[in-house]
Each structure stands twice: as C-alpha cells, then as structure tokens.
C-alpha cells in the first residue's frame, strides 16, 4: 500500500509536466497552424475567382470575361475589373490576359479589320495570333499571358496568371 503512494514531490512533478505539456502544445499548435496554413490554402485553390460564365457557353470565338475582385493597394481599395479573353481550343478552355506585352495597353479581339482573326493593340498596332503568339514585326516582344482555368459547378473559374503555354 505504502509502495503505491505518490509522494508530494512526485505528485507535483507529474502535474507540472502535464500542465507544462498543455502549455507547450497551446503555444506550438497555433504556430504550426500559421506555418502550414498558407500551404494548405493554396492547395485549396483560394486564388481562383469564379466568373459568371458557363463553361457550356464558351465557343471558339474569344469573348471578354470580367473578373471582379477587390484589390487593396496600400490604403486605396481599387475597383479595377480585370478581364480575360476566353475561348475553346479543341476541348481545352483558354483564357488569355488582355495586357499587351509591349507596354501594357488592353488588346481587343478582331478590332483590326485587316486582321479579323487576331488580337489587336490599338496603342502601337501590336498584333497576336489567337493562341497569343505575338506577330513578328509588330512592337510586342512576347506572347500574351494566360490565366489558369478551372471548372466550378459548370462555371468558369480563373486562377493566377502565368506565361503562355500554348505557343510552342
């Protein structure tokens, strides 16, 4: 009986270790969460923005799709709506960035009557083929960028912008 008795010293050390353990866990858990969360989030696709366009409505003809989100630069909340030129190529949905790779104007599809099947930049006459490839001899030096695309409940979602993957 007396062998099993817990001395005051043992009792204290057990309880303190226990409490200390909880305290350490209490501190470490949130730290771990903060450290890991961003990684988890990007896997969850937090950067994709759902548009109002149905995947089924997308055809081979590029259309302008609005991308609405709030962007906060310093103290100024900007309401600039981004756009994408969206079309179907085979079974693949393509969303090109409208930002001209020359000096950054917005390009338009087919607005140059002599080249109705190209993207046209009215600033300095830059032209791009449908896949975004810049036409040699016009000012732009690279192809149009591309959005990552995803389907969400039948609607088109657009993700981060990356370099053009269609132009080989």
């Amino acid at each position, binding site marked *: 009986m007396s062998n099993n008795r817990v001395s005051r010293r043992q009792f204290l050390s057990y309880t303190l270790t226990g409490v200390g353990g909880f305290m350490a866990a209490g501190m470490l858990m949130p730290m771990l969460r903060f450290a890991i969360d961003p990684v988890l989030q990007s896997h969850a696709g937090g950067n994709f923005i759902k548009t109002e366009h149905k995947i089924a409505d997308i055809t081979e003809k590029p259309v302008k799709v*609005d991308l*609405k989100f709030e962007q906060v630069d310093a103290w100024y909340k900007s*309401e*600039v*709506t981004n756009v994408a030129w969206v079309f179907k190529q085979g079974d693949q949905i393509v969303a090109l960035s409208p930002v*001209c790779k*020359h*000096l*950054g*104007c*917005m390009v338009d599809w087919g607005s140059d009557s002599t080249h109705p099947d190209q993207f046209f*930049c*009215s*600033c*300095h006459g830059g032209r791009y083929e449908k896949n975004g490839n810049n036409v040699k001899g016009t*000012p732009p030096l690279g192809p149009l960028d591309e959005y990552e695309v995803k389907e969400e409940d039948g609607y088109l979602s657009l993700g981060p912008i990356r370099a053009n993957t269609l132009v080989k």
Partner: protein
Amino acid sequence: MYFNASDVTSFMAQKEFIDTAIVPLVSVDLTPEKMKQSGTEADFLLSLTSFIEQQFKGRLLLMPPFSSSATLKNEDLPKQLEAQLHNAGFKHVFFITCDHFWTNIGEEVNVIWLPAIPLESMDRGVKNSILEDQLRQVIPMLSTKWAQI
C-alpha cells in the same frame, strides 16, 4: 502610365511610344450647396481617368489632377502646362474635366468635357459599364488626334 517613379522611368525610355499626356482638371467648390456635387465630379473624373489609363497604359501618361477652386481658376494654367508638357516630349496633351469653365479655352488646347455621373451609389458592375460607355465617348477624340500624328 501613372506619374510615379517607375512609370516615369518607362516614359523616359520609351518616349516615341508614350506620346500622350492626360491632365484631369478638378474644380473644388467649397460652398455648402455645391460641395457634394464637387465631390461627385472629382470622384467621377479620377475613376474615369484611371480607367482610361488602364486601357491605354502604353500610350499615355496620366498626370496627377490639377485642382483649383473658384477664385484660383486661371485660363493660363492649362496653356502653360501644355507648353511644358510639349517640351517634356509629349506630342499630344489632353485636359479632361467636368467643369464648363475650361471649355472656354477649347480652341487653344484640347479640352475634353464630360458631364459628371454620380458613381457613389452604384455597385461595381454598373459602375464599370458606365465607365466603359464614357470611355467610348473619349476614344474618338483621342484617336482623331493620334491619327493626325
């Protein structure tokens, strides 16, 4: 391009491409009856000019707004500013405003006058389509000048 260090650097390097300056002329009216309207005008003008900037970033430099109140308005300001902008290398200079005062000098400098549309009560989608409509009014004025070279 905006009037900030990095965009101005691009302008310096690409003067043959960035050949146009846009100057918003904002009128600040501080009388109790007109102050709110004045706020609407400023808001509209700044939203519209930054929208224009987004569309034509590679062709134009949007200057910070030049503001004046009733007693400070001076027809010489745009004229002198235009001369200085030409000296700085801009082929085309446009003033854009909601105040009729400046249309008086429309003969001498390029003044684009637009009625202010109150944007404050609109949601983003409506606002954007309004701005797009207004942009469509402005584009022909820019492109006629651009076509003249």
